[in-house]
């Protein structure tokens, strides 16, 4: 409602005050000011509108059934300031209003047995009282009381009673809002606790599965602790069990359930060879842990690399996607609801069996398909498939890194956890020495994807973390130069990055289609005078062992090669 809203004609009563407009005004006041200030101002306006001598706000402090609970006056206008006065909950007209949750109209206090006479020090005699309870969705907050009517009759009427009840609602909403804000401040404090729990949880995730040749996973929690998890468990005999799950809700509760589900999977997968039964067993045990309304969507599966046979079961989770060797997608929507709701028909979950045979199976959480692009459009299954296609040339670990990085919005927090898992039917082929070849749009937003991919590739090649960081920075600077100076800020160019390992060094080659650079223009500047600009080229040479401009492939613009040793000289490889 905005100031100046006109009350509908039906409610306008020429004989009485316009309570509807006052209600609108109070809502506005509460929205704009600090609650303490606006509450006193509101009482003043209410007292004026009702022609009352005084008005006061009582707040319930303590739970309603707590014998120690009190109704305490927290704001007051009128000849006597009773701010701070406390009444036991059942007591007085105010107590009656709160207990019954009904407005109270007391025309003549001498006739009402509940009336508590004021102390002799009070300046005026209380003749009539109107009291409306404050409550929101059943939660009792307190009451607003107005006393003595100033005009000749000195009595309140039914209409005043209804009006006060309505005005009290405005105050109640404002109080609830104020409390929600206070809760948010407390949430910031618990966030620190969540971060601690997150680091514990990270240790429970399977160790970097880069060593696993067939199943890779990645988990990016949105807010410290994750309600998603994935697990990969090699079994004796060469088969591999895997799982991916999403617990409803966020925060600590969800994270704890995720840990429990992961533990259950880990224990039972060793003994149970049928995914449908395994899922049912996990579901039965989880039902005891889950609070009312919580549920877990989950896929478990078993892969045999020798026969390429894969079996999986799905309880209410996003459809696993099989990308066959021709690049076509097949989706397998769940037939049964999530764990924690009802047991599946027949006590086991249905299984899907397929031959991976050169293709790959993708499991993912809804944080992936519900991620939004810059225009706010949801990615959806189709969008996820496009991303997978874009990075199909990479090996599975690198591909997941690239897809996850592409899903994380620019500079903002994730809305939901991102979890991905891929079962690949064949070992990745490695061209001799070539570790990575990937094309990128020459766009500033792609730099973070380039950085993540390169960091992962360098570390898997055995480069130590600090050196990998230096190489990543140098390549980042080189790409910036290509974007800014080569393509002059146009975003429709491309950069192709190849990473090769020869002997004890890594070489990153960047190929672009920009106008050829003259090597003489590429020297870094001296650092004597601090100036913004020109640092990039200096970094490139300072952070690597060699920077060369090579003959570009036919038709292309430039080929820049940056080389860096895997280890510092003198250290064992």
């Amino acid at each position, binding site marked *: 409602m905005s100031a100046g809203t006109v009350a509908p004609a039906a409610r306008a009563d020429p004989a009485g005050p316009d309570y509807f407009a006052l209600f609108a005004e109070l809502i506005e006041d509460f929205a704009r000011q600090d609650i303490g200030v606006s509450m006193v101002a509101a009482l003043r306006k209410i007292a004026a509108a009702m022609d009352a001598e005084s008005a006061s706000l009582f707040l319930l402090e303590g739970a309603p059934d707590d014998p120690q609970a009190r109704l305490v006056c927290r704001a007051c206008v009128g000849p006597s300031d009773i701010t701070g006065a406390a009444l036991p909950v059942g007591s007085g007209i105010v107590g009656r209003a709160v207990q019954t949750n009904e407005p109270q109209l007391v025309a003549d206090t001498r006739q009402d047995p509940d009336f508590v006479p004021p102390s002799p020090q009070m300046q005026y005699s209380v003749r009539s009282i109107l009291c409306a309870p404050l409550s929101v969705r059943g939660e009792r907050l307190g009451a607003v009381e107005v006393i003595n009517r100033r005009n000749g009759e000195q009595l309140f009427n039914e209409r005043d009673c209804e009006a006060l009840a309505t005005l009290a609602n405005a105050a109640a909403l404002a109080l609830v809002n104020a409390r929600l804000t206070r809760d948010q401040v407390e949430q910031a404090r618990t966030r620190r606790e969540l971060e601690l729990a997150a680091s514990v949880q990270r240790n429970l995730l399977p160790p970097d599965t880069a060593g696993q040749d067939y199943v890779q996973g990645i988990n990016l929690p949105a807010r410290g602790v994750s309600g998603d998890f994935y697990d990969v468990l090699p079994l004796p005999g060469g088969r591999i069990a895997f799982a991916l799950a999403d617990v409803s809700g966020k925060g600590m509760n969800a994270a704890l359930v995720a840990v429990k589900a992961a533990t259950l999977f880990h224990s039972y997968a060793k003994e149970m060879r049928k995914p449908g039964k395994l899922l049912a067993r996990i579901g039965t045990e989880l039902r005891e842990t889950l609070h009312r309304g919580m549920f877990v969507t989950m896929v478990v599966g078993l892969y045999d690399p020798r026969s390429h046979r894969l079996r999986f079961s799905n309880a209410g989770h996003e459809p696993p996607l099989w990308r066959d060797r021709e690049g076509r997608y097949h989706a397998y929507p769940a037939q049964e609801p999530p764990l924690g709701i009802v047991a599946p028909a027949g006590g086991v979950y249905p299984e899907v069996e397929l031959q991976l045979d050169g293709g790959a199976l993708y499991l993912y959480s809804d944080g992936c398909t519900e991620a939004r692009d810059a225009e706010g459009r949801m990615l959806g299954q189709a969008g996820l498939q496009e991303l997978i296609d874009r990075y199909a040339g990479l090996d599975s670990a690198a591909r997941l890194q690239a897809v996850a990085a592409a899903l994380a919005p*620019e*500079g903002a927090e994730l809305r939901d956890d991102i979890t991905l898992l891929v079962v690949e039917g064949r070992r990745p082929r490695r061209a001799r020495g070539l570790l990575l070849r990937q094309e990128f749009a020459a766009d*500033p*937003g792609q*730099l*973070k994807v380039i*950085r993540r991919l390169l960091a992962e590739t360098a570390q898997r090649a055995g480069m130590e973390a600090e050196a990998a*960081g230096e190489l990543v*920075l140098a390549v*980042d*600077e080189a790409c*910036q130069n290509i*974007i*800014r100076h080569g393509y002059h800020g146009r975003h429709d160019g491309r950069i192709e990055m190849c990473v090769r390992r020869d002997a004890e060094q890594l070489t990153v080659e960047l190929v672009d289609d920009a106008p050829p650079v003259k090597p003489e223009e590429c020297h870094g500047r001296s*650092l004597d005078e*601090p*100036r*913004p*600009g020109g*640092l*990039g080229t*200096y*970094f490139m040479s*300072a*952070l690597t062992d060699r920077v060369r401009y090579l003959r570009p492939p036919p038709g292309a613009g430039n080929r820049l090669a940056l080389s860096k040793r895997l280890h510092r000289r003198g250290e064992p490889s």
Partner: protein
Amino acid sequence: MNPGTHQTGDGVSVVLRGEIDLETSPAAREQLLAAVAQGQAVTVDLGEVSYMDSSGLASLLEAYLKARDAGLDFRLTRVGGSVQKVLALSKLDKVFTIV
């Protein structure tokens, strides 16, 4: 003021977060210049910055020079790991006041 900038008893404090690269440094630059425009001492908190490249440094440097020309104090604080490295590499750790 935008969310990462707030008033302290000591002037204006700017908190930068995450990765400051070619994509995100324009926003950081605006935040820093706006803080300098307040006309008070500026402290830049880099404790939550996980990555900074030359474009990020350029933004810091530009703001620093503006502050210097206006006679205002400009300080960096909570300079860790990777940020410390790029400052040292560019020799800007001798130029900035780091507290």
